[in-house]
């Protein structure tokens, strides 16, 4: 492994009721988060290919862990998202290098498909930074019932020379989705949008 990992955390969130209505089956979201050393911390590095390679291996590992935490097969996942928080000695561009060039391909390999853009967020922050991972349907970005987000945080990360990288996967949309728009059974799945 290229990444020097200090810690990995997985979160599973299940909603069984909302506004006093039963949600059956419960909606479920999982996130896997890795806390890694930032090899580019504290200095300007022009070539960020090392971080891109780290993104590739984390894409595979974190997606596998998130899917395993839900106890489902990859292709049963419905929506996904990704996010990173860079410690104070790093640069926002470090998060971009991890998230954008190479992380997506292994995510899609684990999930079988994934025609849609993987929604993402990034920030720089200190210990306990809260990541709001955006979520969208994995095969059609316009599926309105699956626009959502998942909040994760670790009180001891990211340290100044670290990066927190997260991948979130769900097997469902929002608990009581009812604002119309494209539904998941209308997906054509050709262009990643509809």
């Amino acid at each position, binding site marked *: 492994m290229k990444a020097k990992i*200090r*810690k990995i955390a997985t*979160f599973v*969130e*299940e909603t*069984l*009721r*909302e506004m006093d209505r039963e949600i059956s089956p*419960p909606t479920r979201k999982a996130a896997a988060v890795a806390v890694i050393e930032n090899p580019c911390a504290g200095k300007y590095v022009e070539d960020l290919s090392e971080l891109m390679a780290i993104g590739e291996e984390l894409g595979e590992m974190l997606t596998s862990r998130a899917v395993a935490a839900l106890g489902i097969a990859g292709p049963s996942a419905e929506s996904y998202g990704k996010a990173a928080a860079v410690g104070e000695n790093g640069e926002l561009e470090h998060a971009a290098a991890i998230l954008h060039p190479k992380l997506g391909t292994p995510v899609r390999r684990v999930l079988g498909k994934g025609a849609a853009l993987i929604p993402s967020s990034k920030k720089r922050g200190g210990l306990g930074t809260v990541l709001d991972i955006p979520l969208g349907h994995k095969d059609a970005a316009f599926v309105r019932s699956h626009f959502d987000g998942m909040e994760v945080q670790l009180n001891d990360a990211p340290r100044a020379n670290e990066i927190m990288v997260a991948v979130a996967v769900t097997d469902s949309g929002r608990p009581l989705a009812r604002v119309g728009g494209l539904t998941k059974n209308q997906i054509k799945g050709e262009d990643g949008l509809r």
Partner: protein
Amino acid sequence: MPEVVIRKRLTCVEAIFHEGGAVAAKPLRRAAMLTVIRNPFAGSYFEDIASFMDDLKPLGLDMARRLVAALGGDAKIVEGYGKGAIVGSAGEIEHGALWHVPGGYGMREVLGGAKAIVASTKKVGGPGTRLDIPITHINASYVRSHFDAMEVGVPDAPRADEIVLALVMTTGARVHARVGGLKASEIKGEDGLR
């Protein structure tokens, strides 16, 4: 007998590989299970609340079982534990105290008669409140290597009329424990203390 109504569950598992020192041969794992329930006593003062502890016992057992499952399914690997509660703003701290018996009972049942008192903490707070759950060795409270804590919380809970109930289990000592004191290998295991 008020019913136990669950809105949401959150499971978090951490694997800690190092914290600046050598990478552990077996990473320390810490798992937390949080359940958001309706507070049947929210909104006014009720003198008689103690019977709700019995109603919560099946939940304590279920949460303890889910925690062991999240750690791989073998109760024998669990070495540390703790518990806590966050009461929403329409409740009182005494409602959190209802968790002492059923939370401890559930973990003892699943872990096969752990001897040490289950360290605990509780507070009243709003949605997203964080709680530092203290952790000690399951058979001897004085084992210094196992003193730890895990910060937990649910982004959208507790609402005013809810309680977040939490259990935590760990698989070992702090990752770089080296401040002496009673060791796990020196436990007599008679009084739950040493």
